[in-house]
């Protein structure tokens, strides 16, 4: 039986290439994500360097377009999503008392399709730098006809890399669903699951519902480009707006795919460092499910200025504003969890608290954007850029870092350097606000997004943002150093790691054994 091999770890490169182990696969996901963070981050710095002054300084406008496009695609599909899948791989089996993921081989395939897909995207950029054609240059939302009639030849590679990413995400989500439904320890009923597991469970359903729709959208792009169909061409009875509808039917749930696991992480961390149970566990579960449901009926709020009938604008506006209710429930639950707790402020907690405050700012600007008449002013300005960077950087990315600090002692057996962690937090938190907060002002004043030049009255705020960007970017090298230092050594972590930590993963020794629970624990 396979049990005989349980503690025998494969060695060499084969350990990673052929892995069937949830921890090794999770590690690969997380390293892939961190690598892509530096790749996508470099692109962001090129954008911010160009925008330091008005006028064209450093790059050609054509290259600037490729930078905004690839920066967005890499950060969404190459950083945030893989990081959360990596966290799910490490944590879900440990948190539900399972030996591994339900389908370990498919798990590895989900991972290896990511570098496969991104190799094509990055190759098109390298060829563009070498002067052979252009990389995708139509923005990360790839609206038709920019991405069909007017797009470079590399778009067809981009389309197939989106297909591969979709296959990867659907297989990953199926695996998570099967693991959570089928591999829970005896006694762990659904309403006893840790909230991180709950949020991932719901996220997995979002993934299997919308990634195939994205596949359909890029397939229509492909046939419009190569086989003469007219889905997105009015001359044949189609409509470029059809692309936006299909894209945002995927795209809006997609933004919740990137934030629901973040909610889960914060809901694990805050109770630990407040030394209290999570306030309103049940309402957290229902709020997550409500947000997931609402995400399917709000997509056209991204298209307010496209000339939809007024009835549709009103429907999508009200449906969007409804999302504030379950999200508010969550924010109040986090605050109530901290209320009268015995708080300590280790690095994960600092990131979690920063998340609550800064994500709420991003939520409020989201509400402003939801108001259809006001959105006519905000559409396609830097205000939108400020909004989604508050929810994706100070929201999702901050919680990914919080999660790494929170669980890395369990993964490596060593505590990270707390002093350096705090330095990293303060550098990151302050520079992120210097970077993104001024974008609200230039956006409200009318500065358009995705343009390499701007009017001179926007100069000061853009310079602030650029300075913030470089501090933010280089601070992440410190994060890399802290992670490597924790892997190499440091104070030994206890089994419980944190004084107030609860959950099955904190009953396993640190570092956790190669196969998590060979005998399932009994949950009371």
């Amino acid at each position, binding site marked *: 039986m*396979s*049990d005989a*091999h349980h503690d025998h770890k494969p060695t060499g490169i*084969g350990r990673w*290439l*052929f*892995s*069937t182990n949830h921890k090794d696969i999770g590690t690969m996901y997380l390293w892939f994500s961190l690598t892509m963070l530096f790749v996508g981050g470099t692109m962001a710095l090129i954008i911010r360097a160009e925008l330091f002054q008005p006028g064209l300084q450093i790059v050609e406008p054509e290259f600037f377009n490729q930078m905004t496009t690839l920066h967005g695609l890499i950060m969404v599909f190459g950083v945030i999503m893989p990081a959360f899948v990596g966290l799910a791989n490490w944590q879900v089996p440990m948190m539900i008392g*399972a*030996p*591994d993921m*339900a*389908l*370990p*081989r498919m798990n590895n*395939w989900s991972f*290896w*399709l990511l570098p*496969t897909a991104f*190799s*094509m995207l990055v190759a098109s950029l390298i060829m563009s730098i070498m002067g052979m054609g252009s990389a995708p240059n139509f923005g990360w939302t790839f609206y038709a006809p920019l991405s069909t009639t007017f797009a470079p030849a590399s778009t*067809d590679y981009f389309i*197939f*890399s989106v297909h*591969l990413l979709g296959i990867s995400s659907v297989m990953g*989500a*199926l695996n998570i669903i*099967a693991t959570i*439904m*089928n*591999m*829970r320890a*005896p006694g762990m009923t659904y309403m006893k699951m840790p909230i991180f597991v709950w949020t991932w469970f719901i996220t997995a359903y979002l993934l*299997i*519902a919308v990634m*195939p*729709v994205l*596949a*359909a*959208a890029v397939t*229509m792009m492909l046939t419009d480009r190569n*086989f*003469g*169909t*007219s*889905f997105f061409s*009015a*001359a*044949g*009875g*189609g*409509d470029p*707006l*059809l692309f936006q*509808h*299909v894209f945002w*039917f995927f795209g809006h749930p997609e933004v919740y795919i990137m934030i629901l696991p973040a909610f889960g992480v914060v809901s694990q961390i805050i109770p630990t460092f407040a030394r209290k149970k999570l306030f309103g566990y049940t309402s957290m579960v229902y709020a997550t499910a409500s947000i997931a449901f609402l995400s399917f009926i709000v997509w056209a709020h991204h298209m307010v200025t496209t000339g939809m009938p007024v009835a549709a604008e009103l429907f999508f506006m009200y449906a969007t504003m409804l999302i504030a209710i379950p999200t508010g429930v969550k924010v109040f639950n986090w605050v109530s969890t901290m209320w009268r707790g015995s708080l300590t402020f280790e690095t994960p907690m600092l990131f979690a608290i920063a998340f609550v405050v800064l994500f709420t700012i991003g939520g409020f600007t989201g509400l402003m954007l939801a108001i259809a008449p006001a959105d006519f002013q905000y559409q396609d300005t830097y205000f939108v850029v400020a909004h989604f960077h508050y929810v994706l950087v100070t929201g999702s990315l901050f919680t990914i870092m919080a999660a790494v600090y929170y669980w890395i002692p369990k993964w490596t057996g060593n505590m990270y350097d707390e002093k350096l962690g705090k330095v990293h937090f303060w550098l990151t938190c302050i520079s992120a606000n210097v970077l993104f907060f001024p974008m609200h002002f230039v956006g409200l004043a009318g500065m358009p997004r995705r343009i390499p030049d701007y009017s001179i009255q926007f100069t000061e705020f853009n310079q602030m943002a650029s300075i913030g960007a470089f501090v933010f970017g280089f601070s992440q090298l410190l994060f890399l150093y802290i992670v490597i230092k924790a892997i190499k050594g440091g104070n030994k972590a206890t089994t419980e790691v944190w004084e107030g930590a609860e959950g099955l993963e904190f009953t396993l020794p640190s570092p956790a054994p190669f*196969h998590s629970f*060979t*005998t399932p624990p009994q949950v009371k």
Partner: protein
Amino acid sequence: MTTSNQGNYFIPEPSKWPIVGSIALLTTVIGAVTSMHANAGEPPSMLLWVGFLMIAYLFFGWFGTVINESMNGKYNAQVDHTFRLSMMWFIFSEVMFFAGFFGALFYARQISVPFLGGAANNAMTAELLWPAFDAVWPLLSNPDNSIFTAPKEAMGPGGLPAINTAILLASSVTLTWAHHALRGGNRKNLMIGMFLTVILGVAFLFLQAEEYMHAYSELGLTLGSGIYGSTFFLLTGFHGFHVTMGATMLIVITIRCMKGHFAPDNHFGFEAVAWYWHFVDVVWLGLFIFVYWL
């Protein structure tokens, strides 16, 4: 349900198949793009065929491994349940893939075509941009007929499509009959049912090819004939592709039935294919109603 045989869950040894699969897909898509970018008249890139061969190797190898493990009794009830859950939700994701194309069809019929014809508040758009356009579905004239040549005639529901509907429905019946025979241990009826199902599946594909030739040569209905042709061929084409996969799977389990792989109480491989076949059947009913009939 979650407590049966806990602690014996099968964790496979390290496997090369995921890497083989990634390389196979990369080769295939690079071959596909190279073929699409080739000049007119050039044959498809060799890489495409190499990619297809690698995918075939992947399926033989990976599923072969799984079948061996299954035959050697490595899968307990909990593993079986994992397979059921993942197959079920995989089919759901396929439903959503088709939903994307059905969405495009409904959008074209309810919104983009009427709007181009002047509906809602688009009277002046129609008058100034496409005065000659007649917004009637199925489109026998396009807004700009110099770019997209409209078909001479639409594909009606009678004839081949109706026969194909009957064929697919019948194949679902024969498959269910075969399943009952398998559960009752009646090998003869099982084999008859499987052969009939495979024959019906292949017949469907044959007639579908026949219908495409009719569309191209006589009706002038092509991929390039505007939104009607676009939705018609992508919906029926992806359905046909799924029928091809389903028929291949049916052939595989028919061979496995011949080899006696399935027990009356343990035959998930058979059931998974049956679920998939019924799914393909249901999609066809949607197509028949909304693409051919209404």
